[in-house]
């Protein structure tokens, strides 16, 4: 045993083997597994001391190296990792305050333009007071989670870039997202903590309450909020509006024709409304007309038949107009209303396209038209994310009842980037589909999340009231680099990483499960989450959370394949087969973990906002610039073919489609079109049809979408605005704008 050690500052100090034993013990305790008995601790300490003596090692860094190697050698891999973390983070932890305060200084005194940390999420304004306040909270929370909550090896894996725990700052608080069924919520009426809102009775209040529900739920979750059946839900508001408009017009007609009083006319309308039985519906007006005739006495019949015809036409037009305004307001509200202390608008998604009722169709048509028109000055709306549900027999084929809406959806997407397209006929979505039941229609949330299968309750593999609980992504390129071309090593490392992520997701799930209904007064208190309606205020939510999903994500399949084979899956058959083998293996592992735990472990094609740069930066530090792997500032999204790789749209779709079937937690395929191709309806439709045919679950088309706020032009602007001829930053004379306004009504007004 050495008699002294050399400290980092070069000074000498007496050797104390107890310090080694304590450090190992502490690391072992932090892992919470691999439990070491006092004998084990002594054994490892003795091995360390023996080797130090044999090799004459004295420097504190050398001693720590020997501790690490000894732990690994005797099978304490996790303890070793935790010990490594202690080493790496030691200075940081010792200077905890300095570290956190440095971050706070950055947040306080730098603008978002300079600091990446303020631009982690592009939809949060890091320069506003509340945006900064949120970041203080978020950074403080991450620090707390890292140093006091997470098992040390998990925290080390996150911080060194093996994995990424998404929304780590919300670790102690929330779940990701939920698919909200507005229909039962509206029927009951609901409370947002500021008074009870009664069942809405017009399309305007349906639209307004939809926004309020999305906003209320957003404040209790860390991801986005989705309405999976927007057309079905809003259709009921349209139906009520149509009834109101019908009886108003009916009475007006009677009053004028009879030259009577308003009261008499309304009384007659009220009487007929009772006599005719079930009230009029937009899609069944003729049937109602027949019942009305039958109920009327012979004397009044001609008058009432005319009143009916007049009222149907009048109510149809008025309802259409009001629905357009309600959809316009819906979009405007979702782009302007605040959540999270005002720093961001709620992340919202709406799915639609399968409701073939007259009311549902009216909703979708007007929502699409309002989307095409854009916001107040013609700006493209950022929210909600819109998803058109494509289904053969409902809208995909010519002759389907909603085929016109499918066409309108494509035209809208070609102009405004939304809607995206969800494909209900993809085999992995179709297997859950039951005709006429919206709860079985695959829906997507935000950028790609999908929640449908349910191992916890196989009788209810449905959409509404369910969502993702949390997700954690694996850095695939690093595994490729670590394995250094050895496939056996790659899969062994992948398994090890997946085990770590499973353990971490369960660790988080345990924290989430201890929460009570009162922690989520809207999500659980209002019964939005599946089965939460039956719980009391102080009940734990552990049971009902089991309907949610725990997702393992991945990033950079393309770079991992480059590291392993020298080519990515767009470049060689070898890489293509290996890519499917890797992701197929990951899916088998999540399925097995689901079987084992009876929890919904699913595989996610991670979108990676804020993460794609972090991994590559850490890997570059470790492995340097590896061509095709670490030589760009980002890793490629999930299973995507790299964005820089040129290939035809149809080939990209064919190469990516098989991964959709494997990634049951969500996926998306993008095609990038240039402005001219995008304006060509046949070309756009050919892309969407190819996605449908190839079994893509969720897809969309990207195209350049520029706007000149001065003249209102929307389209591609290269150097010069094609409408007003100005270059970026140049002015235009008022005369020019006035002349343009005569030609284009959407030229904004510049008063004064």
């Amino acid at each position, binding site marked *: 045993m050495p008699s002294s050690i050399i400290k980092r500052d070069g000074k000498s100090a007496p050797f104390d083997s107890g310090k080694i034993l304590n450090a190992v013990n502490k690391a072992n305790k932090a892992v919470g597994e691999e439990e070491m008995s006092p004998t084990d601790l002594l054994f490892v300490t003795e091995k360390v001391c023996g080797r130090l003596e044999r090799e004459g090692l004295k420097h504190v860094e050398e001693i720590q190296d020997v501790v690490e190697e000894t732990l690994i050698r005797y099978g304490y891999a996790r303890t070793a990792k935790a010990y490594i973390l202690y080493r790496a983070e030691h200075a940081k932890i010792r200077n905890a305050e300095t570290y956190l305060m440095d971050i706070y200084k950055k947040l306080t005194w730098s603008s*978002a333009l300079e600091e*990446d940390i303020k*631009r982690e999420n*592009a*939809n949060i304004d890091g320069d506003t007071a509340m945006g900064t306040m949120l970041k203080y909270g978020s950074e403080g929370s991450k620090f707390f989670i890292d140093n006091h909550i997470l098992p040390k090896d998990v925290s080390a894996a996150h911080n060194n870039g093996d994995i990424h725990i998404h929304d780590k700052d919300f670790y102690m608080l929330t779940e990701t997202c939920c698919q909200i069924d507005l229909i039962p919520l509206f029927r009951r009426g609901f409370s947002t903590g500021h008074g009870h809102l009664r069942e809405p009775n017009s399309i305007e209040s349906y639209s307004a309450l939809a926004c309020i529900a999305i906003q209320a739920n957003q404040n209790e979750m860390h991801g986005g909020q989705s309405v999976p059946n927007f057309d079905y839900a809003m259709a009921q508001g349209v139906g009520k509006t149509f009834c109101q408009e019908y009886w108003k017009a009916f009475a007006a007609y009677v009053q004028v024709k009879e030259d009577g009083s308003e009261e008499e006319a309304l009384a007659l309308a009220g009487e007929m409304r009772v006599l005719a039985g079930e009230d009029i519906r937009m899609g069944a007006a003729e049937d109602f007309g027949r019942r009305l005739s039958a109920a009327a006495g012979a004397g009044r019949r001609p008058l009432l038949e005319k009143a009916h015809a007049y009222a149907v036409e009048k109510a149809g037009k008025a309802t259409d107009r009001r629905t357009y305004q309600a959809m316009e307001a819906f979009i405007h509200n979702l782009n302007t209303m605040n959540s999270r202390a005002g720093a961001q608008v709620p992340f919202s998604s709406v799915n639609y396209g399968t409701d073939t009722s007259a009311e549902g169709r009216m909703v979708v048509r007007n929502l699409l038209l309002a989307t095409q028109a854009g916001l107040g000055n013609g*700006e*493209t709306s950022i929210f909600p*994310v819109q998803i058109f549900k494509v289904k053969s027999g409902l809208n995909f084929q010519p002759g389907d009842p909603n085929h016109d809406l499918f066409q309108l959806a494509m035209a809208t997407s070609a102009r405004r*980037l939304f809607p995206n397209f969800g494909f209900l006929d993809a085999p992995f979505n179709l297997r859950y589909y039951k005709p006429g039941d919206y709860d079985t229609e695959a829906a997507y949330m*935000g*950028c*790609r999340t999908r929640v449908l299968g349910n191992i916890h309750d196989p009788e209810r593999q449905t959409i509404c009231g369910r969502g993702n609980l949390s997700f954690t992504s694996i850095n695939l390129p690093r595994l490729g680099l670590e394995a250094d071309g050895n496939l056996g090593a790659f899969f062994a490392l992948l398994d090890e990483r997946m085990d770590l992520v499973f353990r971490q997701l369960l660790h988080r799930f345990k924290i989430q499960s201890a929460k009570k209904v009162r922690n989520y007064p809207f999500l659980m208190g209002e019964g939005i989450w599946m089965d939460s309606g039956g719980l009391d205020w102080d009940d734990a939510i552990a049971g009902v959370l089991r309907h949610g999903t725990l997702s393992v994500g991945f990033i950079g399949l393309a770079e991992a394949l480059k590291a392993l084979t020298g080519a990515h899956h767009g470049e060689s058959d070898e890489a293509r087969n290996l890519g499917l083998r890797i992701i197929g293996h990951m899916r088998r592992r999540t399925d097995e973990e689901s079987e084992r735990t009876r929890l919904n472990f699913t595989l996610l094609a991670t*979108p*990676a*906002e*804020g993460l*794609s*740069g*972090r991994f590559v930066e850490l890997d570059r530090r470790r492995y340097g610039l590896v061509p095709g792997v670490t030589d*760009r*500032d*980002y890793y490629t*999204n999930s299973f995507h073919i790299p*964005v820089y*790789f040129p290939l*035809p*749209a*149809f080939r*990209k779709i064919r190469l990516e489609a098989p991964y959709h079937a494997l990634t049951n937690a969500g996926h998306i395929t*993008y*095609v*990038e*079109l*240039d402005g001219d*191709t995008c304006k060509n309806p046949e*070309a756009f439709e*050919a*892309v969407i049809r190819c996605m449908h045919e190839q079994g893509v679950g969720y897809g*969309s088309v990207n195209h*350049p*979408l*520029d*706007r*000149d*706020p*001065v*003249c209102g032009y929307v389209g591609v*602007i290269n150097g010069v605005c094609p*409408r007003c*001829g100005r270059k*970026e*930053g*140049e*002015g*235009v*004379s*008022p*005369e*020019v704008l006035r002349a343009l306004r005569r*030609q284009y009504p959407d030229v904004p007004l510049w008063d004064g």
Partner: protein
Amino acid sequence: MLMDPQRETKTRQTRRIGEGVGFERTRRITGYLVGTLDRFNNAKRAEERDRVRHGV
């Protein structure tokens, strides 16, 4: 209907609308639309820059 703004400036010193105003460039980044590239983080800006169009 295009006019030459350069020549206009020279011939008549009138009020100009939109001086210093940039163009808005809406792009989709990992599923969400963003109205300006300023708020993307560095990695995402690089990714957007590298994108190539796919032919049909």
